[in-house]
């Protein structure tokens, strides 16, 4: 396996995540797609760290994990509060604000 394969895999995962955010309707699934994007970034970072021989990329991956965990806490709290009011986590149902 060459380095390029990992980068392509990460790019594919990132694209799947980005498309998922745009087409999926459930807030939890949308959020999982964002997490997929973050993890594809981690794969990219670790691959580049390997190719350059430095430690930076691996260190950044740890930071990304910590920040993603913090984001989960805040995000699930917000989605939870909406779900408890509306009994639905669909992003189509949060449609009071427009124009």
């Amino acid at each position, binding site marked *: 396996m060459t380095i390029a394969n990992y980068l392509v895999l990460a790019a594919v995962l990132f694209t799947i995540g980005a498309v998922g*955010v745009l087409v999926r309707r459930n807030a939890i699934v*949308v959020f999982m797609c964002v997490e997929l994007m*973050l993890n594809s970034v981690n794969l990219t970072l670790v691959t*580049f760290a390997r190719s350059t021989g430095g430690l930076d990329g691996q260190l950044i991956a740890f930071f990304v994990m910590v920040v993603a965990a913090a*984001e989960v806490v805040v995000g699930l709290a917000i989605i939870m*509060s909406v779900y408890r009011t509306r009994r639905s986590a669909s992003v189509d149902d949060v449609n009071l604000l427009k124009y």
Partner: protein
Amino acid sequence: MPDIQAPDLSFAALAPLLFVLGAAAAGVLVEAFVPRAARHRTQVALALVGMLGALVGTVLLAGTQEVTAAGALAVDGPALFLQGTIAALGALSVLLFSERALDPARSAFVAAAAVPAGTVRDRELATSTRVQTEVYPLASFAVGGMMLFTAANDLLVMFVALEVLSLPLYLMAGLARRRRLLSQEAAVKYFLLGAFASAFFLYGLALVYGATGSIRLSDIGAASGRTGSEPLLLLGLGLLVVGLMFKAGVAPFHSWTPDVYQGAPTAVTAFMASATKVAAFGAVLRLLYVGFGDAADTWRPLVYTLAIVSMVVGAVLGLTQTDLKRMLAYSSIAHAGFLLTGVLGVDGSGLAATMFYLLAYGLTTLGAFGLLTLVRDGDGEASALSGWAGLAQRSPVVAALMTFFLLALAGLPLTSGFTGKFAVFRATIEAGAWPLAVVALVASAVAAFFYLRVVVLMYFAEPAADGPTVGVPGLPTTVVLAVTAAATLLLGLLPGTVLDLARSAAVLVG
């Protein structure tokens, strides 16, 4: 594998940051240990001490030019100028949050955010005078993150600061006491789109790291000047810019702005519209000037296009709005475009002009949103434009102040808005981008129309019989309105001192 070296920290240069983040951490402890009766006062005092302390710290540090924390943080003129601006705007926002005279329930924030909206318990709490105080530590953390954002000399620190400022804002957007469904909806939209945008920023970080082997802006600057337009680097730069432009509310990455500005509690909207914009543009300036300063040809067309799109979208869609908060949201999108025209300036003139514009715009916007909290009907603030008809007959002072702020946003002479616009447009023209300045002038004229429409509505329309009432503000809101109005006037009449300050501060260290 190389060893990891412990960084050297210059605590003096980081004092403003540490002060406000320390106050935020102490605020969490206050929330846990101080009895409920004394909590509100303690939290407001603590948050104010943190932010005003940070403001004083930035003033004392004026003239510092150093890179600290092993190159991860740059404490220089632009960082300190913008940090001071953010701290001042944060302190004024905290005053708006602490207003207790306007709402019959004594606070604009929900008493228990975890209680589902519309339940029996929620209705009980909505009329009780119980006040929740978690918004103050959250605001302090957000201000800390914003101040870190403007000083970040490293893409990783920039990303962490982006999240430190965003996560509290997502929560604060959902804390409104009235119209809780709208507020929660704003929080969900802001969160999902914000997380999406930070994923783009992060992928950009990874690609730039891969292309240059470093995340330090100065190293990236050296590498980008050397390699020029390597595809990986360009793609990374594009993704980083997408992430930052989202935070700055620049079209076409603006879709969250109107919804979130309308749904969030008005005091929080004031905070987001002013301080977040300053922080986001601080990061944009540092990334583009330090990280890609020698490769300016790669990003100038991009910023050029984004500026035009943002000005046009903001000005045109602003015309169609029927809600004042939404209208001000589109106005902020148009202003983000005006700010981008300043970013295109060369030789530091653009930097100084943008910094002055950020200060002027932040204060004016804060004042305008502060005024919105005064006009109320039975269900909280009356932000629908129809409710403002004939307001001058009900409250001449509020109508006059609103007129003044709107004229400043429109950029009429004798207000700070005129000075700011003049400065950024001059920087644009000096950089040779005069077609952009023409578009900006046309967009200003279109935007002036919807500001003036509100003025006409307030003065020349008949008030509705069951229209909203104008509340009498307590001391905090009065102070905010007085300070912002005075600043808007002074920066318009005598801008010389502050312009000179911005000009002398406009030196970035790498």
